[in-house]
């Protein structure tokens, strides 16, 4: 015989308490994000105008626009991606698909993850030593972009590796058993299914490359340049450094200017993230297994 157990209402209350605790945590997390965006929009929006976006700075950077900085940031991000994405994805493919699972491979993985934690100012010094001085690129877009690439590379590798690993092993076995070579398996099955994950990792690095100041300060970004760069061997202005300069180095800057620069920087990053999220959703809609 079974006896009915009494329902314990105490448990329900404990559950409710947990729910509230985690809910409060979430709100605490969201507050700074909302506050930052709100402040930027409130204080920076009246600096916004077409001339602000498309003119050169004037009057010792206290007036005029920020076009050279926007242009330079885009240059830096694009060139650094051209270097870090092929290299990073290729390294991830090697680690995930070719490398035997031994001590060396695990050490390389560990080193890669640790490299992601190196402070950006250290990357900057490496960039000066390697690209500016040793390879004689001088302070240039190329040197700055490669420094950014070195900085973003570990995360590109790790996130690509994780996306490759998330493709079910059964797919690979199915391919091998039809006589596909490793490369055919990777090209036809693994990469297409890992693509959205790799893209996410890359996009996160776009935001980081656009926002970092230290790595470009000594390697290629200039405080003020009255002309746009013509090639990757020129110096350039960049939004992140420009923000630092107008916020701390230049006297008599109207308060709205640095906030305007910050708003543009955040806007560009958000725009890129939005595009990436849209691409991901579009691709994921087609992917089912």
């Amino acid at each position, binding site marked *: 015989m079974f006896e009915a157990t009494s329902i314990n209402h105490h448990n329900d209350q404990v559950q409710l308490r947990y729910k509230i605790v985690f809910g409060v945590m979430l709100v605490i997390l969201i507050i700074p994000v909302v506050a930052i965006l709100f402040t930027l929009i409130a204080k920076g929006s009246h600096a916004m105008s077409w001339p602000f976006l498309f003119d050169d700075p004037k009057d010792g950077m206290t007036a005029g626009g920020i076009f050279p900085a926007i242009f330079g940031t885009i240059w830096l991000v694009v060139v650094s991606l051209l270097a870090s994405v092929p290299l990073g994805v290729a390294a991830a493919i090697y680690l995930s698909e070719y490398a*035997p*699972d*031994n001590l060396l491979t695990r050490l390389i993985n560990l080193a890669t993850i640790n490299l992601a934690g190196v402070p950006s100012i250290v990357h900057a010094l490496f960039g000066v030593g390697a690209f500016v001085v040793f390879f004689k690129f001088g302070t240039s877009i190329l040197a700055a972009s490669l420094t950014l690439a070195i900085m973003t590379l570990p995360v590109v590798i790790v996130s690509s590796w994780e996306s490759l690993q998330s493709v*079910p092993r*059964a*797919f690979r*076995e*199915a*391919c*091998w*058993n*039809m*006589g*596909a*070579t490793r490369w*055919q398996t990777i090209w*036809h*099955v693994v990469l297409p*299914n890992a693509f959205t994950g790799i893209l996410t990792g890359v996009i996160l690095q776009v935001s980081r490359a656009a926002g970092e100041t230290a790595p470009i300060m000594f390697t290629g970004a200039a405080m003020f340049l009255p002309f746009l760069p013509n090639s990757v061997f020129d110096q350039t202005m960049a939004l992140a450094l420009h923000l630092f300069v107008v916020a701390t180095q230049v006297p008599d800057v109207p308060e709205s200017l640095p906030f305007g620069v910050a708003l543009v920087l955040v806007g560009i990053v958000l725009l890129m993230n939005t595009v990436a999220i849209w691409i991901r959703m579009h691709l994921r809609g087609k*992917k*089912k*297994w």
Partner: protein
Amino acid sequence: MNTSNATEPLAINTKDLNLWYGTFQALFDINLKIKQGIITSLIGPSGCGKSTFLRSVDRINERLGYVRIKGAIEVLDQNIYEPNVELAQLRKQVGMVFQRPNPLPISIRDNILFGHRIHNAKSSSKSEEDAIVEDALRQVLLWDQVKDRLHQKASVGLSLEEMQKLCIARLLPVKPSILLMDEPCSALDPKGTAAVEELIWELRGRYSILIVTHNMAQARRASEECIFMLMGKVVEHAPTEKLFVTPAHKETADYIEGRYG
């Protein structure tokens, strides 16, 4: 001149095959002669090395990296562990069907054509491809069910039974001579099992089939020869009927009567 009247042609011939995973020895001195064109089943308790043996016949084991092998496996009279053996060619000869159906996340049609496409540098015309798809699906008795939805994703809308048949069908366009099946029915319900067994029986003669199974009734119903393995060793290899009715070894008798397993 045919001097080998006495010996039937062999699909798989192993010579003192030993296999280790790291320091653990999984197979001990396997000497098996598996005949061409018939269905051979491989039975034994879990961990006895059935799947390991199956997976060393198309060398898929090696991907694990810590597998060591001594001895030889001859597939159609060619030792597959010789250094000049090209894996892609071996796997064209030897197809594998897995426990869980694993269609690729592409259309039914593309699944069937996948093997054909990677083995042919120049692409075939659409009508040639249509013929390949129809032939493969007809061979596995699946054509009538899926002919109207060939462009649908293979991983949605198909039952497990249909997926498993598709996984068999996609091996056929590259014209393998041996099909390895690793418990092909264990993920299926009784009706699906019956259908796939019927299909396997149907393919007999055209392909040499080696099937690992936990299901004694299945081994008895659907195979002509039967191999019983225990602790990495072959205990008995005999015509199925003989192995089940008059087993030569006590271990075999105990196992098929269900005293362990």
